[in-house]
């Protein structure tokens, strides 16, 4: 029972603090590269006030979503956010991961991989999910590599579902089964 459930080698998962975290988070929302790696919505900046409201709303604990922020173990700085969303509903025991590392200085330094390890352990050992899924754009090879490194298997591509910069791109969909994750722990 003493597994450090929220802590990895470089990061820890925590609840977001609306007062302290809204301003740096809103700062990431001015980075169009970050936004275009995050989701398919048109990139739009967001105010710190709006972000504070969102953090407050999401802070209400729910059994269908498990949002965290990512903090550096070294200095407790806010680096990004990550969450597990149960879907379509609990009966199939599937979770979706959403992850965003807003602090550009942390890109390519192993923070994403460390976060994934912590989140997968949470998904399988605390939530007892059967599998975890995620989606990633084909124009984000850095993330694709990180997911493969964490054990995710590419399960297919939805063709041309995202239009960016004047052309269509595929989305890649990945999954990892509980049994696959278990086999990697030894």
């Amino acid at each position, binding site marked *: 029972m003493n597994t450090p459930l929220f802590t990895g080698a470089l990061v820890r998962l925590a609840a977001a603090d609306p007062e302290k975290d809204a301003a740096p988070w809103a700062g990431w929302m001015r980075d169009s590269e970050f936004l275009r790696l995050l989701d*398919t*919505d*048109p990139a739009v900046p967001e105010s710190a006030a709006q972000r504070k409201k969102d953090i407050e709303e999401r802070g209400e604990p729910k059994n269908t979503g498990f949002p965290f922020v990512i903090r550096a173990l070294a200095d407790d700085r806010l680096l990004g956010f990550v969450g597990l969303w149960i879907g*379509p*509903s609990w*009966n*199939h*025991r*599937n979770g979706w991961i959403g992850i965003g590392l807003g602090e550009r200085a942390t890109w390519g330094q192993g923070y994403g991989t460390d976060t994934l390890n912590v989140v997968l352990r949470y998904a399988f050992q605390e939530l007892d999910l*059967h*599998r975890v*899924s995620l989606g990633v754009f084909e124009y984000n090879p850095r993330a694709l590599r990180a997911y493969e490194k964490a054990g995710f*298997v590419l*399960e*297919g*591509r*939805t*063709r*041309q*579902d*995202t*239009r960016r910069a004047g052309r*269509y791109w595929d989305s890649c*969909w990945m*999954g990892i*089964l509980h049994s696959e994750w278990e086999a990697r722990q030894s």
Partner: protein
Amino acid sequence: MFRLSEQLFQGARLSLTAHEPDQDAAVEARWTNDPEYLRLVSNEPARPLSAAAIKKKYEEQEKEKNHRRLSFALRLRGEAAPAPAEGDAQAAPAACPERLIGFVRFENIDWSNGSARLVLGIGAADDRRRGYGTEALGLALRYAFEELNLHRLGAEIAAYNQGALRLLEQAGFQVEVRRREALYRDGRRWDDLWLGLLSEEWQARRAEAQA
């Protein structure tokens, strides 16, 4: 050429219409007593729904029309009314009775990327395997590509839903993603299949069919 007179909501036997919450809810509520139907059209836990709950769903769908989701009732037209007697030009055409047999829904409409997901259901077991799905899918695709101007249309089905897989593949959809063991039904794990059809693929098939 713009075939403006071609009726988007009419097929040979079926019509796409709005839902009439008061009349339709009782019919759809009856369908939800059939677990087979529920397990073919949805990954949510199967459960019977009251007419009141379904009526509320229709009213919510009406409110969000043209936003992220768009829903149609699928109706089977009755036998054609007999033509008015010769010389009786004043007779109004007899009202054609229609029966609710299913639904067509576009979900996750992503306007800036031109993509959406199609969900299609035929409610009563007696109405399945009569070609209604094929006709409804034809109407849905024409609407998706010629009216919503989508670039692609996706669909999601459980691997045990062989009927839907055949229907979609016959219409040109390709299986793009196989989400391994993503569903648990009837005591075992099943794959969840995601399919997709591009606008240009649909256009090419249509041109071929009309040639």
